[in-house]
Structure formats: structure tokens, C-alpha cells
């Protein structure tokens, strides 16, 4: 669609005036970092027409209902709205509509949604292409030279994380002559046989991948490993459906959306941008608590394979970590803890956090090298 240029100051009591008002505010929200599709802007324009621009709260709630889609965004909205309202009333309502607004009808947004749904590349590819790679595979990430890291990144792009399967409640046509009858297909066949259900069809439950939740520690002590592990997170998120990724530092940040871009470098840059406390301290207990409260126990971790990638150094209270791990363990199908330090021969889980968490972990594995990440991919898939 061509770009449209809206110019001039509109009379507000015309429908067009409301639309301009809506477009102006939507631009402001986008600048503030909110994702506002054109469809919602249109709905906001209609909403203003329905409730009016006075009093402040009417306009406020009309926008909340049409433009905000997540409670986390309410804060941004509130601030943008306050600024906008101020603006409307200092400059008089008409002047608030900026001149020369370029309205880009972004159809790309819909295309992105469609792409999301598509094709997880099949098969459990864990191939390694080059023989030079064999050396790299076993090498500790902490000892990588920049060139080796670049090489390893290429190898990581080949990493595919498939998931453990679970039985779904959804039924699929089955080729076997047992299980639950498929009446729909049986009736279809009976028509051909003169009403006699001779050829019977059956259905069987299908399988779905278990949800995979990855929590990666991005604190200072993990710095040498985090850049490689985030790569692993990316491979997991783009590799298949129903994967969630979080960064754990002094607080918890959800980075699934950022990591779902196909291009690994762009995705990781977006995730790093999103995580405010990269290479800061760790509060594993509190981070897990937030995860449990906001996401995990509500349903995300239920029946899921949860992988925590951390060295277990925690500034917080070990009791809190133990309590939260117990909560997580009660709802999850399997809890895997990946500790890059474990590969060292004289490693013992003495970090207070690690010791507190271990009783609530099903699998405790290393994650210091490509080979160990491949191993991890296998554990996740089993």
C-alpha cells in the first residue's frame, strides 16, 4: 500500500479528526517502544468516536482497551498518555495533530506472524561439518580465541534442539485397525458400501513436543560462557515450537521474542539490548521466584522440560533458591541444571546456591563446550 500523507489541522468532531488524533497518539506510543499495529489504531479512532475525548479518563480507557495488549505495557502507555494529554491541552486539541504524518501501512507485521507459525525444520540434526571442528568441540568456551569463537558460532548454527514428545489429546487418523473408531471417515466409506460400515477407520492420539523452558544466567561470573550459551538458546528457540527463553541476572527478562528472529547475530543483539543487567550480579532465587510467580507455576513450566544454565553463584539467600527450585520441580516434567564449571575435575558444587538447588534437579550436566551442548540437546530430547 502506498504511504499516505496526512496534512493539515482537522476539526475534531469529524470522524476523520478522531482518526488523526488516534494516528498521532499511536506514533507517540510506537516511539515509546510499544508495538501498535494499524488495526488497533483504527479501533482506537472508533473508540474515541464512541466515548469522546472528555473527560481524561474516558480517553485514557478507550486507549487502554484498544492499544494495550499486555499488562507489562501499561506503564509505557500511562507515561505516553500523560505526556500526550498534557500536549493536547497546552496546544489546544486541534494543533496536537501533527502535520505531515507519514502513515506506513505495515503489512510486514502480518507476514511476520505468518512466518512464525511455519515449519520447524524437521529431523534431529546435530551434524558437525568440519574435521577441524572435532578439536573445537571438546574445547572449553572459556579458552576460545576470537577466531575459534567465530568458527564455533558457525557450528552452533547447525545445532538443532528437538524436544521430548508427550501424548497430545488431539486425535489423528490412524492406519492401525484398533483404538478409537473414527466415525467421520467410517460414515464416508459406508456411503460407498451402501450404508454398511465395512471399512472401519480409527484414530489415535497424536504427539506434541513438550514445552522447553530455558533460563540462562547472564551475570558477571558466567560472562565467558553466556555468549556461547545464548547461542544455544537461539538455536533452541528458532529450531522448534513451544520454547521459551529467559535471561537471569539481578532480575528476570523474557527474551523469547527477541531470540525468535532467524538471524542469530540480530537475534542475540536484540536480546542483549533487552536485558538491562547483562554481566551484573545474580539473584537466582529471586529470579526464579519471579519466573515461578509470573510464568512457570501458572502453566509455562507445567509438564515442561526446564533447563537452567548457571554456575550457581548466587548473592541471594540459598533458602529462597531451594524453596523456588522445589516449587519449580513440583510442576515441571524434568529440571536440568547446566553448569559450565562442572567439567573441571576438581569441581564440587560448593557454591551455596548450587548446593541448595541440587536436591531439586533431575539432571546435572556440564555445558562448557560444543560437545557438552550437543549432549544437552540429546538430554532435552529424551
Amino acid at each position, binding site marked *: 500500500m502506498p504511504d499516505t500523507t496526512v496534512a493539515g489541522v482537522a476539526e475534531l468532531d469529524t470522524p476523520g479528526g478522531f482518526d488523526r488524533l488516534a494516528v498521532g497518539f499511536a506514533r507517540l506510543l510506537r516511539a515509546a517502544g510499544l508495538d501498535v*499495529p494499524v*488495526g*488497533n489504531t483504527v*479501533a482506537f479512532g*472508533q*473508540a474515541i468516536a*464512541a*466515548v469522546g475525548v472528555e473527560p481524561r*479518563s*474516558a480517553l485514557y*480507557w*478507550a486507549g*487502554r*482497551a*484498544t492499544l*494495550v*495488549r*499486555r*499488562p507489562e505495557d*501499561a506503564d509505557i502507555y500511562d507515561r505516553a498518555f500523560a505526556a500526550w494529554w498534557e500536549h493536547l491541552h497546552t496546544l489546544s486539541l486541534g494543533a496536537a495533530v501533527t502535520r505531515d504524518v507519514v502513515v506506513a501501512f505495515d503489512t510486514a507485521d*502480518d507476514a511476520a*506472524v505468518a512466518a512464525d*507459525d511455519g515449519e520447524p525444520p524437521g529431523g534431529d540434526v546435530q551434524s558437525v561439518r568440519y574435521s577441524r571442528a572435532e578439536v573445537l568441540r571438546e574445547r572449553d568456551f572459556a579458552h576460545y580465541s576470537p577466531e575459534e569463537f567465530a568458527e564455533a558460532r558457525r557450528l552452533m548454527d547447525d545445532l538443532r534442539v528437538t524436544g521430548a514428545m508427550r501424548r*497430545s*489429546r*488431539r*486425535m489423528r487418523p490412524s492406519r492401525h485397525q484398533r483404538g478409537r473408531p473414527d*466415525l*467421520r471417515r*467410517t*460414515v464416508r466409506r*459406508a*456411503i460407498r458400501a*451402501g*450404508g*454398511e*460400515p465395512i471399512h472401519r477407520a480409527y484414530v489415535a492420539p497424536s504427539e*506434541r513436543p513438550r514445552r522447553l523452558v530455558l533460563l540462562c544466567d547472564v551475570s558477571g561470573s558466567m560472562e565467558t560462557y553466556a555468549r556461547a550459551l545464548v547461542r544455544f538458546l537461539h538455536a533452541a528457540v528458532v529450531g522448534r*515450537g513451544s520454547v521459551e527463553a529467559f535471561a537471569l541476572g539481578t532480575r528476570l527478562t523474557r527474551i523469547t521474542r527477541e531470540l525468535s528472529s532467524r538471524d542469530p547475530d540480530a537475534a542475540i543483539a536484540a536480546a542483549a539490548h533487552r536485558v538491562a543487567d547483562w554481566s551484573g550480579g545474580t539473584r537466582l532465587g529471586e529470579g526464579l521466584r519471579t519466573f*515461578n*510467580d509470573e510464568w512457570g*507455576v*501458572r*502453566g*509455562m513450566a*507445567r509438564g515442561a522440560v526446564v533447563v537452567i544454565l548457571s554456575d550457581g553463584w548466587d548473592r541471594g539467600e540459598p533458602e529462597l533458591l531451594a*524453596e523456588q527450585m522445589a*516449587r519449580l520441580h513440583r510442576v515441571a516434567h524434568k529440571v536440568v541444571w547446566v553448569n559450565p564449571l562442572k567439567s573441571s575435575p576438581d569441581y564440587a558444587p560448593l557454591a551455596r546456591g548450587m548446593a541448595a538447588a541440587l536436591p531439586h534437579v533431575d539432571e546435572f550436566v556440564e555445558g562448557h563446550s560444543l560437545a557438552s551442548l550437543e549432549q544437552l540437546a540429546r538430554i532435552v530430547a529424551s
Partner: protein
Amino acid sequence: METVDDVRVALAEHDYLADEGLATAVFLAIRLQRPLLLEGEAGVGKTEVAKVLARWTGGELVRLQCYEGIDAAQAVYEWDYSRQLLHLRAVEAGGGDVVEDELYSERFLVKRPLLRAIAYEHDALTPAAPPVLLVDEVDRADDEFEAFLLEILSDYTVTVPELGTFRASVPPLVVVTSNRTRDVHDALKRRCLYHWIAHPDFDRELAILRVRAPDVPEALARQVAAAVEAMRTLDLYKPPGVAETIDWANALAALGQSAIDDHSVAATLGTILKYREDQERTLAHGLDQLVHAAAERSA
């Protein structure tokens, strides 16, 4: 219904006390004929909104409870296979020939909630108002289901390949609820109006208690609302929702309490806090503090 305030008043007449935000969202859902997506903690009254809308408008409440693995056969339509087979046999026995179209006609169609809400037709026996379609806990269904829900909600039509397309003469009023166990797909969210129902403040909660638990004496209701308000600041795993508040007030009243004290709170804690850890945290915090907070508010 002309203004947002009309909605608020009408809902209140049917025992639902909505704040301005929710009333605006409902008003817009009706006016713009858009589905309304409600999210919020468990027990804040999301489902109740749909029920009260049905009572108010007089439309039939069509409820679709979502669950893992729900598919078109349970949500939209299914053919009545046993009747189809019987019909086949009967025609066959009479020496006739079965025409396939006959088998796939509306008399063999079992309408599930989504199709029922879309194909609704007003006649002498049914209410004039369009039905209220409640799609409850959509986050429990899987993404495939969301895809066809979106298809139906975007133009209020359902296509049955063997029969043709059903189009709603008047679109149903659609309320979709989610507990946020996972993110609802953005495409569906874009189609809907959105409102997050928060826990009510003290005054609203008290008002709700007065309406929903009329047997509870006012003094006790004040104390309960105050104690719940204090509990919500305790950093619990599952802060009590309005539904729990009502249960708790009723429980206390049933025990013949006219005021909150240490003993009665301890005895009834299970009606308001459903996690052992939360109960322990509250006990550690001290019941007398809660009782004290309650007494101050009721003064």
C-alpha cells in the same frame, strides 16, 4: 445504552461492580462489535463478566470451556455419525438410493458452541438479543485452536465444507478470558479489545462483598476487606482474589463471627489461602497484625 456510565450502572444492577476501565472496554466491545479479551489473576471475576452480560442483555450465554487438545469437532461442529449410519441403513432397507447431500444436511449437524453462537437465529422461542459467547481460559487450548478461533472472530462466519457458510445476522457479544499461563497469539490479541482486571481496592471490594455476600454483617465485611487488602501486600504466591474474599466472608459469617479475631482467622485460613507456603507466610507475619489492620479500617 448511550454512554460508558450506562454500562457501569447496568452491570451494577446485575450485581457486578465494574470500574471505569472495564466499563469502557465492555461499552466499546458492544459498540464496535469486537471481541473482548479479559486477562487477570484467577478469581478476579473474568468469567463473571460474560455471565452478567448475558443476564443484562437477555442473550443466551454460550460457553466454550477451552482445554488442551480441543479441536473443531468439540468447538465448532460435528456430524451426528450414528444418526447418519442409521439413516443410511434405513434408506438402504427401503430399497432406495442414498444421496450424499441428504446425509450432510443440517439435520445431521451437531452445533458446538462457536457455531451455535454464529448461526443463532431469533425466532418466537429464542431471545431477541444476540447470544453472549464466552470463550473461557483460551490459554489452555493449543495454538492450532487459536488459529481457527481467530478466523471465526474476524468475520463472524463459519464454513462447513459439506453445507456452506453460516454468517451471523447479528454478531454475538464475545468475551474471551485468559489466565496468562501462556501468551495468547498476537494476531488474536490484535483482533480483540483488551482489559486487564486487577484486584479491586478496599472500597470496591467492600461494595462487592455487600452485594455478593448479603448475609455477612457490614462490620465483618469491612474487616474482611481490610484483612484481604493487607494479605495482598504480603508477597504471597497466590494473593487472594475476589472469589476467595467472598468465600472467606461467608465462612466467617457461617461460623457466627461478627468480627475477625486470631482464632477465627486461623480456623478459616484455608478458604482464602490455598497454598501451604502462603498460609505459613501469613502465620509468620502474625495474625494479630492482620486483625489489627482489619480493626483500624472498620473503625
